[in-house]
């Protein structure tokens, strides 16, 4: 194993494998904290919805379904593409990894672009919950505002995670182009992949909460 030790291994590790496993464990633990972060938000969301079902339903009907759905499809595709890149580097195909990362980051940018467009539409429609002239009125106004508080907090937090993910994936692409990764060592590719898939999964949970549940009732 001695040829493994030199380039990528910090001195507290026995070998590159030992270090790689630890890094992946660290990312899983970080994702556990993220589950509790978004979990707290989703729990309060469900709790508030329970007390204000009409307002939440009315609020949800105002969301832009086509953008949310397109973004869901985009993110699932991006995770698939990134996974292709990961499979490629495991057999040493560096160019394939670079292309997959570029495509993944590109899809991420499109996601954020669509998100900005969606926020723009929402604001035009007077759906900002603190607006003096809020779109919904009467009995649905209070719960509707509450729904839109959750909507903006959740989508903004998710967008911040997306932005960090795009930077991370772009960084992987640059390092791959520099020739840092090969079939034997590509821990950062795996670690960033875990993060990207997680951010994708968060959207998979937020999507029904925002766009679907209200429309079904």
């Amino acid at each position, binding site marked *: 194993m001695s040829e493994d030790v030199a380039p990528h291994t910090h001195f507290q590790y026995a070998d590159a494998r030992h270090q790689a496993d630890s890094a992946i464990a660290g990312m899983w633990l970080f994702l556990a904290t993220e589950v509790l972060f978004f979990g707290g938000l989703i729990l309060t969301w469900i709790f508030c919805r329970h007390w204000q079902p009409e307002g939440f339903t009315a609020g949800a009907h105002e969301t832009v379904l086509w953008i949310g759905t397109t973004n869901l499809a985009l993110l699932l595709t991006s995770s698939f593409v990134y996974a292709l890149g990961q499979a490629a580097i495991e057999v040493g195909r560096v160019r394939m990894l670079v292309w997959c990362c570029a495509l993944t980051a590109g899809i991420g940018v499109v996601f954020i672009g669509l998100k900005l467009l969606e926020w723009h539409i929402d604001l035009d429609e007077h759906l900002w919950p*603190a607006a003096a002239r809020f779109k919904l009125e009467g009995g649905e106004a209070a719960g509707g*505002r509450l729904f839109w508080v959750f909507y903006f907090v959740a989508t903004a937090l998710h967008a911040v995670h997306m932005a960090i993910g795009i930077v991370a994936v772009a960084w992987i692409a640059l390092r791959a182009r520099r020739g840092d990764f090969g079939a034997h060592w590509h821990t950062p590719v795996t670690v960033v992949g875990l993060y990207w898939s997680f951010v994708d999964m968060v959207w998979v949970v937020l999507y029904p909460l925002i766009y679907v549940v209200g429309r079904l009732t």
Partner: protein
Amino acid sequence: MSQTVTATRALSYLEDGKTLRSWLLTTDHKRIAILYALSITVFFFIGGSAAALIRYNLITPEGALRSAETYNRLFTMHGVIMVWFFLVPAAPVTIGNFVIPLMIGARDLAFPKINLMSWYLFMAGGACALYALFAGGVDTGWTFYAPLSSNYAQGHVVAVVAGIFISGFSTIATGLNFVVTIHRLRAPGLTWYRLPVFIWSFYATSVIFLLATPVLAITLVLLSFERIFHVGVFDPRIGGDPLLFQHMFWFYSHPAVYIMVLPGMGIVSQIIPCFSRKELFGYKFVVWCSIAIAVIGFFVWGHHMFVSGQSPYASIVFSLLSYFVAVPSAIKVFNWLGTMHKGRIHFNAPMIYALGFVGLFTSGGLTGLFLAALAADVHLHDTYFVIAHFHFIMVGGMVSAYFAALHFWWPKITGRMYPETIARGAALLMFLGFNFTFLPQYILGYLGMPRRYHSYPPEFQVLNVLSSAGASILAAAYALPLFYLTWSLFRGERAPRNPWRATGLEWTTDSPPITKNFLVTPTVTSGPYDYNDPHTKLADV
């Protein structure tokens, strides 16, 4: 783990780089521990100054500071600084950071760069909080209850909350580092049941860091949104729920109590066997009690809300679970006593501090049971009884344990011995001053003096003056180590590798250790408390 590091001449970590840059960009866990220790000492004295002013105000019934507004800002500042910028990080980021890799025979933590990043996050969070507190402060109390904090409070709520949010991520990073390190970097032969209780305690603490802090983070995000835009999920006018804030807040803040005290339990579990020259009594019980406390601690948060109007059925369950969580804590107290039983006890300064921890923690824990009782809590809720209760655990208990650890590992950290006689005096003075300050507060609370009031009826004055007098003794006791420990850095006797003849891998390496901790990775063949030398006399005892 079979790498061997070759060094031409073994430089200690303190000599390995003298520039400021070599400190500020270090990834050595020992140097980062020092950076953290300096920072939290500053925060401790800022929070302590606020406490001194609180006690000064309460000398006269009408309030010596005259302004209730100022008083509100002072106790908020005291709470915020002491909880998030001293007690929560204190033992993990300093003592834990320094000792954990040494104790498990590792050369560093798993993620040294993340360790350094956590210090910068901590400093950034601290800067936010200090800015807010000195630019006018906040008058919500450290609990930030909505809708007071979101709609009515004066001052820089968002800045303080942002500071706590950022420093929360620094503790998450530390917890993550510890968990991975303890899983992955143990020396050969160091099985789980050969780990010192210290490691188990910090492991349990780290798990709480990871699982509780994110919930506080999202709560603070929602609170800030409501504060900035005047609409939010804790606002009853649009169907939100202020009690929701309390549930979310205490879901973090009750486990945070165990973040603060579990490290103390780990520390005294190292010190008491060493200075009793006996194996820790009931090792596996202590270990699993730490885990039990961490787990049950997540399900008792509602005991802070008995009078808030939450469902009485919920209150009954929370009350019962709060009794349950006291059981493993009590088991540990008996284990420490059992360890000392028929031991050859040496009253060195770390031992005196550790015994202070046991006594004050027991008192604070037992009065916690009063508060966990539904009927008694109606009377005692939000009185000085509560203040005395949690100060006994956090200040009496945890700060004593922190000083115990500081003295115990001081020779390892600095390579110098502290002056023993004056240190013993300081330890006794701290115990005395603490009781003098907080015992009267139990009585005040029982008689009905509410917390967070700037003035009080004249009949409470005698007890308040006693408490303030005690606080001045306590302040002197906290200032003493600052002087004699600093003095020892320059004039203290050179420390040998193992001045206490203690067990544990950290004592097998140099004092102070070399940058890479061990020249050859150690192999462990026995349990953690192999004190089979009951007749050993410690030097200078």
